[in-house]
């Protein structure tokens, strides 16, 4: 299998509320996987479980770096009391065992937020440098060398600025580089958040409603940006989105959630015509309610 992320039997309870119920899906390497569903379906909860911000009540979330053969060791890793398993040809991670910052640092899963979370009082460039914290920290000898100007921190910082510059050019923010992030217009803030996530050098980019609040033109530009991230930078994308023009145009694989349960899983064309999906989004006619409920299992 060419899977990158494998979610199995993911369940998340908040007290008596069952936010995600026994969800399983796979996101393949090099794919754009969309996670859609009506409001309150539990999409962001799934994101928070994958990125380590929530500890799932049950389930396994595995992510593989390197050769597909590392998946053979999934059961070995699960039985061990370890977060990851390193092999010569790759590494396997169990994300539900890792704290949030290690999911980003080691497993290389980057994310954006539904309500934009930029460092608004820092400049655009500083936002992108903070994203490269871990490699820069090593280059500065964990501050101990950098404070005395020993070592190659200067060179590392210039390289980091060059990397930031590349993403600024790609997102069209270069001439705003020295402005505070909080001063940018809304669409630019969304792009900056994606650029910041990409500066962490991820293998999987999780975008939580990146097109929310964008006009049709900006949405189209965003679609292009996401496609380029996938094609040019070989980064797989997991996408939560309500804007169906974006979802249907760019995603390779769509997972539909409703009330925390997966109701459809497949290529966009198939999902679009799935009666359960249509029912979840648009509802059904009164006379069909009983039939559909029986099908969905309510």
């Amino acid at each position: 299998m060419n899977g990158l992320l494998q979610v199995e039997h993911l369940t998340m309870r908040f007290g008596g509320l069952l936010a995600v119920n026994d969800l399983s899906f796979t996101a393949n390497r090099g794919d754009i996987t969309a996670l859609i569903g009506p409001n309150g379906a539990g999409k962001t909860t799934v994101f928070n479980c994958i990125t380590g911000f929530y500890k799932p009540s049950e389930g396994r979330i595995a992510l593989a770096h390197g050769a597909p053969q590392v998946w053979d060791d999934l059961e070995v890793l699960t039985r061990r009391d370890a977060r990851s398993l390193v092999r010569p040809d790759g590494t396997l991670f169990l994300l539900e065992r890792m704290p949030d910052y290690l999911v980003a640092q080691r497993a290389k899963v980057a994310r954006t937020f539904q309500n934009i979370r930029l460092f608004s009082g820092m400049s655009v460039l500083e936002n992108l440098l903070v994203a490269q914290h871990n490699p820069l920290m090593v280059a500065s000898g964990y501050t101990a060398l950098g404070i005395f100007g020993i070592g190659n921190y200067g060179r590392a910082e210039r390289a980091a600025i060059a990397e930031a510059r590349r993403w600024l050019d790609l997102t069209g923010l270069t001439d705003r580089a020295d402005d505070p992030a909080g001063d940018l217009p809304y669409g630019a803030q969304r792009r900056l958040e994606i650029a910041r996530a990409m500066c962490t050098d991820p293998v999987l980019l999780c975008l939580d409603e990146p097109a929310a609040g964008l006009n049709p033109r900006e949405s189209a530009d965003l679609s292009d940006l996401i496609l380029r991230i996938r094609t040019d930078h070989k980064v797989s994308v997991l996408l939560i989105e309500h804007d169906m023009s974006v979802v249907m145009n760019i995603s390779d694989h769509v997972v539909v959630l409703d009330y925390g349960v997966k109701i459809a899983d497949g290529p966009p064309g198939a999902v679009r015509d799935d009666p359960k999906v249509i029912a979840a989004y648009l509802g059904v006619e009164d006379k069909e309610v009983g039939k559909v409920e029986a099908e969905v299992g309510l």
Partner: protein
Amino acid sequence: MTTPPAETDIARAFKDAGFWALVAFGLFLPLIGFRTVQDIHNEVTLETRWPLLFGFVAIIAAGRLLHNLVIAPWRERRGQRLAVPTAAGVQRRRSLFAGAFAPCAIGFVLAYPAIAIWLAGAGGAAKWLDNFGIQILIYVMLGFGLNIVVGLAGLLDLGYVAFYAVGAYSYALLAQNFGLSFFMLLPLAGILAAFWGLMLGFPVLRLRGDYLAIVTLAFGEIIRLVLINWVPVTNGYAGITSVPRPTFFGIPFNASDEGFAAVFGLEFSPIYRLVFLYYIILGLALLTSFVTVRLRRLPVGRAWEALREDEIACRSLGINTTNTKLTAFAIGAGFGGFAGAFFAARQGFISPESFTFMESATVLAIVVLGGMGSQVGVAIAAVAMIGGTEALRELDVLKQVFGSDFDPTQYRMLLFGLAMVLIMVVRPRGLISTRQASVHLLERKTISGTLVREGHG
């Protein structure tokens, strides 16, 4: 017919001044108008101080009148003038001033002892060096240290004096019991204080905002109470006396034959010791400032500021926020420890009395008034707050106005509060409210304080 509107303006100004005089009278009547004194029969009697009270009321009425008739129209005219679009030029001139300020200020403080001795003579300069120079610089240094925790990392710390105390007691005890020299113990005191910074950091990692503030406040009190009650080690309330003084590479500053003055063939004077101490604390303050400036350009400094802006975003970028917070606490505490060791060496006597919450509050006020995160702002605020209170001692002229039993230092807290309210009204984000980005791609820009978050956990 242009006079009638002007007349009504004046009438309104007087009416307004009268109203504020009335408010001032009501406010100051219990505060200043009455006073309890013990007479020779040990009975408490009430004494009135009408001249003083009316003096205050008159000052306020006159000030309000001045504001209404002169300052307010002037500000209005100035506002109209500034609305004319010459903003770019104004901006450039101001940034030139800002760029030249720090080097000029450093030049002045380097030359300060020479200026003080030249103006006041060797005898008179002692007060200027000790009360104004050294005292202010200790608080500048404490302000710089706390600035790392509160201003950069956005962690509200109300117990900073604890680290100052740890540094002071570390130096005093180790110097007395093991005879180690000041310059050996200075880093050691800093390291011990940093260690206690970590001790405080661990339990408060999960706390934010008000809760963080309360626990740090409690931590400061715990350290003070330990110092009071652990009598075998700290000697309790009595404190530690005759703490060894720093020496000039082994040469003590005393009147003996091996003393500094004798060795260098100078006439003995206590001023040499003060000049020496002045340059030590100046060096320490400059070191703190230099280290902070460098740290801001390193990933750890940027992570502190990012932590202040948004902790969740930090974690999503793979930053270990636990370590980041702990380094902020430890480094801030370390500088507090340096200042504490210097304080003990300068006073020669320390007791828990010197490390009350009031000190924490003063240092925090300096950081907040200065503008959180701004080095220049903190330095200016320290000069104003500490220099201001010291300057009150010098205002003996006021005795001729208010009578011989008038003691201006008694009004310290009143003026303190007034100044703080005034600054917070005029500049709610502190004296220097803009933030300088640590790195720039195309041009250096300042970031308005309204966008910078305050953090606090």
